[in-house]
């Protein structure tokens, strides 16, 4: 009747400028720690998930006690400390220093590691979806109980990392030769094509993977929902219930991370931005100010390098927690690592 409609808004903005983005953090657990450096992408471009890495930079993590480590570029734009290298210590401040391939220098504000409380319980609740999306949007809402640190301002982020196992079928890839379709297995499948027949010659190294799923928006504590440093039923994420995520089971890990006010404010703004997307009274989101700055120029740098005390707890959610029988996983004929955040290395907690 009203003809209400949604169209892309035509807002006249100036030509896009690529900006440097820094994404990394250090905790009180052993490394390695990762710092990713890349360039931001224009909105609306088709390859937003393919960010341009900042290669060949020199990246240091330093603390206020004089310790420092030069990171190694392990992938394009991905810099890592060594597993037994620098490690966060409560009460110390950490920052990152970067010199790009072109000699530009950047650094972050020092971020203090504060004492951290602990996650005391993880709860979950199955919620049916609205009928859209994968498996109708069914899934589990994840809640955590946690405690803060007495006499310390409770600026805490509860970070969810869920892990599930998937199976793919890379040996089932085929190709067309003339009018015939013949097997074309991925080498990692352990199979070869021998006279148009699949023959197993080795173990498959890309059939079973463990995929990490992260919270879609940061869950930060709110003192309004806190009594005596106890947080109860803080919602931390959502895990879709479908035949891939529940092929085996899902490990849900909740990390409690202690934050400084500036880092807390950063994640609060990220949360506000994410919340705004589903809010009918969507407030205008603002500029997301990180803690990085250029040295010797006024170039704007996006992102954050932060430090936190950490404590974690995990549980498993099993397929029989889903109130109906899940279908068998679909046949995907690609190596399992092809998905995002996927590895064929079985995590130590997986049994």
């Amino acid at each position, binding site marked *: 009747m009203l003809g209400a*409609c949604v169209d892309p808004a035509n807002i006249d903005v100036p030509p896009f400028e690529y900006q440097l983005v820094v994404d990394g953090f250090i905790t009180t657990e052993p490394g390695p720690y990762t710092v990713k450096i890349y360039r931001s992408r224009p909105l609306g471009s088709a390859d937003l998930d393919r960010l341009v890495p900042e290669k060949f930079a020199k990246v240091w993590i330093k603390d206020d006690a004089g310790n420092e480590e030069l990171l190694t570029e392990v992938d394009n734009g991905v810099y890592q400390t060594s597993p037994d290298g620098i490690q966060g210590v409560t009460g110390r401040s950490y920052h990152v220093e970067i010199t790009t391939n072109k000699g530009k220098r950047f650094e972050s504000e020092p971020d203090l590691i504060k004492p951290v409380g602990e996650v005391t319980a993880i709860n979950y609740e199955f919620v049916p979806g609205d009928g859209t999306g994968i498996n109708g949007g069914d899934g589990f809402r994840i809640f955590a109980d946690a405690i803060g640190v007495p006499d310390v301002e409770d600026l805490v982020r509860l970070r969810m990392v869920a892990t599930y196992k998937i199976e793919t079928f890379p040996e089932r890839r085929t190709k067309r030769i003339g009018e015939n379709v013949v097997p074309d297995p991925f080498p990692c499948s352990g199979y070869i094509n021998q006279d148009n027949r699949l023959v197993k010659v080795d173990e498959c190294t890309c059939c079973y993977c463990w995929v990490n799923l992260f919270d879609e928006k940061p869950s930060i504590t709110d003192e309004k929902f806190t009594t005596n440093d106890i947080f109860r039923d803080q919602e931390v994420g959502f895990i879709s219930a479908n035949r891939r995520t529940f092929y085996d089971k899902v490990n849900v890990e909740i990390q409690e991370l202690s934050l400084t006010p500036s880092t807390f404010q950063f994640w609060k703004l990220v949360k506000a931005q994410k919340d705004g997307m589903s809010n009918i009274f969507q407030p*205008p989101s603002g500029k997301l100010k990180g803690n990085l700055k250029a040295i010797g120029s006024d170039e704007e740098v996006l992102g954050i390098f932060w430090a936190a005390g950490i404590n974690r707890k995990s549980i498993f959610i099993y397929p029989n927690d889903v109130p109906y029988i899940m279908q068998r996983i679909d046949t995907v004929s690609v190596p399992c690592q092809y998905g995002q955040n996927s590895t064929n290395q079985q995590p130590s907690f997986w049994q």
Partner: protein
Amino acid sequence: MKRLLVFLFVLSGFSALPQSILDITVTPDQEGKSLISLIEVVEKNHDVRFYFLNEWLDGIFIDKDNIGQPLGSVLSNKFLGTDLNYIQMNAHSIVLVKDPTLAIQRINSINSALQERKKISKIEIGTAEISNRNASVKLKGQILDSKNSEPLVGVSVFTSDLQVSMSTGANGEFELTIPNGKHLIILNYINYEELLVDLEIYRDGEIKLLMDETPRILEEIVIMDKSAREVTTSRIGQTQFSIKDIKRQPAMLGEVDLIKQIQVQPGVTTAGEAASGFNVRGGGVDQNLILYDGLPVFNSSHAFGFFSAFNAEAIRDVNFYRGGIPAEYGGRVSSVLDITSREGNYEKWTGSGGIGIISTNLFIGGPIKKGKTSIAASVRTTYSDWLINTIQTNYIDLTNSSVSFYDGALKLAHKFTDRTKLTVSGYASSDWFRLQGDSTYQWRNLLGSVRLDHVFSSRLSSAFTVGTGSYTYEVNDRNSRTGFSLYYKILYPTVKADFNYQYGIHTASFGLQSTYYDFNPGTLEPSSEQSNVIPYQMDKQKSYESAMYVGDGISLGKKYYVEAGLRFSVFTVKGPATVNVYEPGVPKTTGSQVGVQEFKSNEKVKSYSGLEPRLSLRYNLNSNSSVKAGYNRIYQYLHLVSNTTAITPVDVWQPSNTYFKPQVANQVSIGYFKNLKDKMYEAFVEVYFKKIDNVLDFKDGADLILNDHIETDLLQGLGKAYGIETSLSKNLGRLTGSINYTYSRSQRIINSEFPEEQINNGSVYSSNFDQPHIVNLTWKYNITRRYYFTGNWTYHTGRPVTTPLSGYLVDYMTVASFSERNQYRIPDYHRLDIALILEGSHKRKKFWDGTWALSLYNVYARRNPYTVFFEDDGTGFLRPYQLSIIGTVLPSISYSFKF
């Protein structure tokens, strides 16, 4: 005689003549004697001759003030405001002349009015033969509605021969001091027929005049209510609304909407298509004082902003001030919208109502005791569920939504005597809606007042009001784990005493007002035992806002009108209260809090006060043009804390306190007003500059609901707005209408020594309401006496927006990098609406009067953005989308009636 005088005048010339005769002083023995007698004495004792006709000077006497004055001064004084004058022809001849221009003008005006079938009252008070000892007489008058004998307040009383205008006071009364003789007085009042008074007055007297409400259309040629009013209206920036004209405009879904009509006034904008709040000269929606029968209304919208909360059938008068705000008003810095509800008829039962596709409304009123007591009741309710269920977008699924609202008013009036009246008024509006998920929103305005009007004397009248209002909202979420009920309330009992005193050229007003505010900023409760919500009660906030004011409107001769006023307002926050204390020298954050300061019950926490001068000037260049200027300073002690551009049901009103200073606006405006082609056209241009100290804006990501550290999320700074408003109206003829164009800017500066407490690094940025170009075009074309075609076209620059410019990832989360605050703009807004109005018979005596209105809203189906929001575009990154509530042409039909 006239020819003789002119002849003498030409013969003698009049330069360099001796003035010794005119320097003769009037002796005490002349007191009480006639002017003729004085002239005879002068002629007898001096070698001088006066030429005149005795009848001209009948009734002119020498009074005490004239003793000791030179003869020339006495003659000037006595002839002031009359058509008499004198000329000294030579040392021995004084000629008194009578200028016939005014008399001719008066006769022409009467003849013209007769031709136009205007109502003329012929009134004679006293006779020329037995006239008052003084040349001037006092005329006291009262103007009443011819049907219900209600006093009409604010009627323009224009003495055309003297070019003096004034307005009736609180009891419909006026007082004129005029020379005895013949005068033509023209009475104008919105929604009423013009009344001419052919007055012949020779002594002090009192009259009562009855004005008729305008029938729908009297003639082919329609005289718009506003015609010729702008030039002679005393204040700059004031508009009176005709409810009938509002009803004749195209209406969205057939709903007659007062606020929509405000939104097309020069200098007024709105945040979006269906936003009922409005922005005046770059001010926020909270900066408009909306009064219903004298009490403030905190939420003026229905159905999420689609419609205003006021039933047009239940409204009698609407006055809108955007500049030159009188001293009796205060507390909001941008504008005043003063709504007076209808009273019931004292003589017979009448009613009116309307049926549209969204809602239906009914007004009924009549006498409980004829001539003494009347009652009026109105109600409006909706059946709009079906409509909202038709809205379906990718953004919001509204198919299972529900919307309902109602408003109702009741008014009881009793006249104890002609001088004393008691009015009891009640108003309620309520909304309930569910849009998404399990959340329901509910809000409610409740107002009740008792007003006693008493006329102490013909000069002094008064109005005493005691009332209370409340505004509440509730949000209920029934989710099992996170369900909650959020409750918010403002309670504001108010007492007021207003006085009007008329004396000579003065129309003074003065009074006292006091309001007690009891804020409950938020009560949060879990909606079930399973809910994780911890019950939370924000500290209640108690405060008093009091003011006293005095103002005086002074007519200075034919040319000048000055209205000066002074208001003194005080705002005091009282305990019990807990005030957060922060470490000095660092930005206010929850982390920099070092303690709290406790205040006991009724202990003063913080107090603010200020003087608010007001000034309006009018200078009539001639009868067709005037220059007006205004200045006002206003303090605003309540702030709407919002990070959205339109009013939402979960906005929080925050009283000034230790951390939030009152907003202080200083505005100057000046305008030129002109009538053209015998008042067929009217044009004006007005410029203004406004500076507002302590405007509030929010930090990025501010959390405004249930925030007991709200001072850490809000910032105060400087607001400034300036603009030029132009308007051209055609008031007469088959086609009437107006076009106005406004260029205006509205900007903010929020600066601090701390970067965390700056917006856009402390530089100037556009406010949410900065819309530089605004054009409004409205018209009405009379097809026949009863059928007419109306329409309006509106355009304004797209409002500022903070938009995402690029995307990136942090900790596996996609985020957008936003621009500086309000750095860009959404697309421009423009829309054309048309309507065909079919009215019933215009016979004065008929039982039933029905009108059909056929409207087309958004004729060329423009998709104007109601809001811009940011959503995942499928790649995990935000993109801006616009939601157009009305995306197509919207036809509607409604039927209204009265009996």
